[in-house]
């Protein structure tokens, strides 16, 4: 048992692949499984800042939403092929994160949370007002991707299985890439900054630069998640940019365990699964979600995955 667990934790990329493979068989419907993939990636992207650099952002909705809108606009207004739309979303997330980061990395702790929150609100109203492009309050509709042209093959993206497979492969690729980056010297630099700022500085790290790089990286992954969200739902709701969407990322990361690589992904799965199951039983499901979250903060700060890792190792 211990050996199996150890293997699992040692090979996060293969582990993630296994998780993605079995996910549709344990969720009640495929659309939920896709949501878990997308939000899992979003939570992993968020956790680059929270778990690995130690900065709590309450503005990540701007990165997810920016990516979703950019992808949607590229498809609806510019008629670009799907690959280019996903790229557009990823780039938009990266760019917004860079701008937010450039403004916010001067601050620390609680102030970082507040500044990112304020900046994401500005992004919210910006997209809200740009109605001809974004649909304003009504959201962007018509992000309709039907046939997926892969050289030598054409797939119907509205088929649940195809949608899951395509998005699953992309998410898996992103997870693998992120795992590599975190294992690189840059990943070590981030940890150094998180653990002790003064010492990191003394070792020759430019603390602000590392934070800015991490934020930009985080934006790329969240932007990609946003693009996939837009394609999956075929709409982009303005609520994607609301600060409660940032709060969701926080809850997912905590629930799964922000000190582990894969924890936030597990958190996203548990959060969405719980929400979906409880909300069909009782309309007061936010009470259950709230109580569970509070209990995790009080009693199991390591999160679900974090506790498992600690127990089995």
């Amino acid at each position, binding site marked *: 048992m211990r050996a199996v667990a150890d293997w699992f934790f040692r090979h996060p990329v293969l582990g993630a692949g296994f998780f993605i493979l079995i996910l549709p068989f344990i969720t009640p419907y495929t659309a939920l499984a896709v949501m878990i993939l997308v939000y899992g990636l979003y939570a992993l992207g968020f956790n680059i800042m929270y778990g690995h650099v130690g900065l709590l952002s309450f503005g990540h909705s701007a990165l997810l939403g920016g990516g979703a809108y950019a992808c949607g606009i590229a498809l609806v207004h510019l008629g670009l092929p799907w690959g280019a739309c996903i790229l557009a979303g990823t780039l938009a997330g990266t760019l917004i994160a860079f701008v937010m980061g450039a403004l916010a990395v*001067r601050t620390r702790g609680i102030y970082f949370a507040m500044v990112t929150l304020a900046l994401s609100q*500005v992004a919210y109203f910006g997209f809200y007002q740009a109605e001809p492009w974004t649909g304003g309050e009504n959201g962007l509709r018509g992000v309709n991707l039907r046939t997926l042209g892969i050289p030598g093959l054409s797939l119907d993206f509205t088929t649940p299985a195809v949608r899951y497979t395509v998005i699953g492969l992309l998410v898996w690729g992103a997870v693998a890439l992120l795992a590599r980056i975190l294992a690189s010297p840059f990943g070590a630099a981030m940890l150094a900054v998180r653990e002790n700022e003064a010492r990191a500085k003394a070792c020759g790290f430019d603390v602000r630069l590392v934070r800015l790089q991490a934020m930009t990286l985080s934006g790329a992954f969240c932007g990609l998640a946003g693009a996939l969200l837009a394609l999956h739902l075929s709409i982009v709701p303005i609520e994607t940019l609301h600060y409660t969407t940032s709060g969701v990322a926080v809850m997912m990361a905590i629930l799964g365990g922000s000190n582990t690589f894969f924890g936030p992904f597990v958190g996203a799965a548990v959060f969405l699964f719980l929400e979906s199951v409880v909300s069909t039983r009782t309309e007061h499901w*936010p009470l259950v979600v*709230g109580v569970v*979250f509070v209990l995790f903060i009080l009693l199991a700060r390591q999160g679900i995955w974090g506790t498992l890792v600690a127990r089995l190792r």
Partner: protein
Amino acid sequence: MTILGFPPDLLVLQAFTGLALGAVYVLLAVGLSLIFGMLTVVNFAHGAFFMLGAYAGVFLLAAGGNFWVCLVGVPLLVGAVGLFVERFLVRRLYGRHIDDPLLLTFGLTYVFVELVRIGWGKQALPFDAPEILQGTVDIGIGYFPLYRLFVIGVTAAVLLGLWLFIERTRYGLIIRAGARDPTIVRVLGVDVGRVWLLVFGLGTGLAGLAGVLAAPLQGVSPEMGTTVLAEAFVVTVVGGMGSLVGGIVAGLLVGVTVAMSALLLPEMSKVAMFLLMAVVLLLRPQGLFGRAGLMS
């Protein structure tokens, strides 16, 4: 004569409206700031306590009380909930990471909102000001609702009381000292835990008072704390977290900014507040009064 295309009377009345609007922000921000200044806890549930205040008012009215009973009873009831939260939940997190209490109170928001929905239903409830405070009065430059003047008056009275409490009483001295350096205060033999408990109760009680004062302005609904939370944070951050004077100045400043932008650029009135915050933070990351100590 017109300024920017509007008669000066209207501009003055508009600014005055902004001050009245700011009064509620001030009560919220002062509570939030007090808690942060002392406990370094960012109370994400502040909006929920505001909402609880309005429902505590509904509860007291249904139990046979009147509006005046509410003004006294609501801060006590909500403050009591605050004491409970500090004693049994927040206290367990001292010494852990600074984000933890923030996250805890964030989760509590869900719990409070849902409990209220279970208790009083999902629909908004009407809440009327007492007969004697209804109607409008001529304040020289136009008609103004009497109740809004009353809210300004209550806010001013509460702030005065708070100032006297912090500056002139023994407890106030401990609070001021505790905010500067809790370790020294503890070494001097003061039970800092009790002070923190009290401050948390006081701050949440103020949020409750703000809620019951706002109830006749906007009615009562489980979601009423959500919008107000973002606004209260903006005010606190602009003023400088932990600074009471900052909370007061920024509350009024934000109120006037919202009111004036509503007249000049109505489409921008909601984002104006956040732009103000972004600008202040870029020029002075610690907020307008951030560096100054408590109540100085």
